[in-house]
């Protein structure tokens, strides 16, 4: 699975499926795709009729060999690319992709340490790829995921995550605006108290992957360091832009 590939490949949309009220899962057929590791991303390039081009990075929810790539895209209202991917693009349509990209925010089956995944919003996408890879492998390292979303309906892959039935893999949820009935914890952004309660303690020296909007990642990283995690044990990936 080569990395560092800079050429653009033509992708054909194979399937689209709604995922949240403002997000969609896309399956792309990409002839020539070399396969990818869990956690990697790709760049999507759209070209308008007048030649104007827009590029954005999207994390990949799938991993392994094969030429089919799964993306999950959250629509940003004033975006240039995401509204097209979420509202307009249909099976058979073509777009350009460059990738896979990323040699840092990846998980390898040979890692034998505890892993804590922390996602904000659609930042869960690369972490789903990592979770799937762990569950499909013989790797039995303890895994835990903390997923912060606005409300239950805003969660990507909610059913899949809820169905994880593995004694070594626990999923914790945090809700910022609306929670399921009888939710025992306060609503709102994650706090030092909630992170301490809902993640693997620093004493166990987990490798932590944090992905989400820039502000979320910065806040969580600071909390983790304050809780005693070594900065070198926290891998981050930020997104934002429209």
């Amino acid at each position, binding site marked *: 699975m080569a*990395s*560092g*590939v*800079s050429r653009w490949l033509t992708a054909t949309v194979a399937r689209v499926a709604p995922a949240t*009220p*403002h997000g969609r899962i896309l399956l792309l057929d990409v002839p020539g795709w070399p396969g990818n590791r869990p956690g990697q*991303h*790709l*760049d999507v390039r759209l070209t308008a009729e007048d030649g104007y*081009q*827009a*590029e954005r*990075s999207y994390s990949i929810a799938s991993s392994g060999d094969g030429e089919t790539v799964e993306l999950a895209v*959250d629509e*940003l*209202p*004033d975006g240039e690319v995401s509204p097209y991917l979420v509202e307009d693009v249909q099976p058979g349509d073509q777009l350009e992709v*460059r*990738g896979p*990209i*990323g*040699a*840092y*925010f990846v998980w390898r089956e040979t890692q034998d340490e505890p892993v804590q995944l922390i996602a*904000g*919003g659609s930042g869960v996408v690369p972490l789903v790829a990592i979770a799937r890879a762990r569950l499909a492998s013989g790797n039995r390292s303890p895994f835990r995921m903390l997923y912060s979303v*606005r409300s239950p309906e*805003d969660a990507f892959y909610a059913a899949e995550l809820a169905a994880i039935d593995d004694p070594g893999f626990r999923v914790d949820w945090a809700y*910022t*605006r609306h929670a399921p009935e009888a939710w025992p914890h306060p609503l709102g952004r994650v706090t030092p108290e909630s992170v301490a309660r809902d993640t693997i303690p620093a004493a166990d020296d987990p490798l932590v992957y944090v992905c*989400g*909007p*820039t*502000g*979320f990642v910065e806040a969580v990283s600071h909390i983790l360091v304050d809780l005693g995690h070594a900065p070198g044990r926290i*891998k*981050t*990936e*930020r*997104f*934002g*832009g*429209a």
Partner: protein
Amino acid sequence: MVRMNPRTGLVDVGRLDGNAAAGVLSGLFRVDLTAAVVACRRCGERGPFAEVVAELDPEGLIVLCRGCRHTLLTYVHGPGGASLTLDGLGAIELPATE
């Protein structure tokens, strides 16, 4: 530029990181820079390129040190060509390829 997504309430502060910059720069460097360790000439901070501050727009990108916000590199491209300036980038250390 600070924007809040009215539906998700998530704030986009307009700043990403080296992960997002890696694709654009892959055409120049021929390697995936994310796992490379970069050093800031000003404050001496060293760390993975994936963790640097990056600002991207249609014309190019600017990469800043996460420690002191000094500009590490600037890349601008357009119809007339492209330009790379290694402002404060002291070193790029590439890991052994797998």
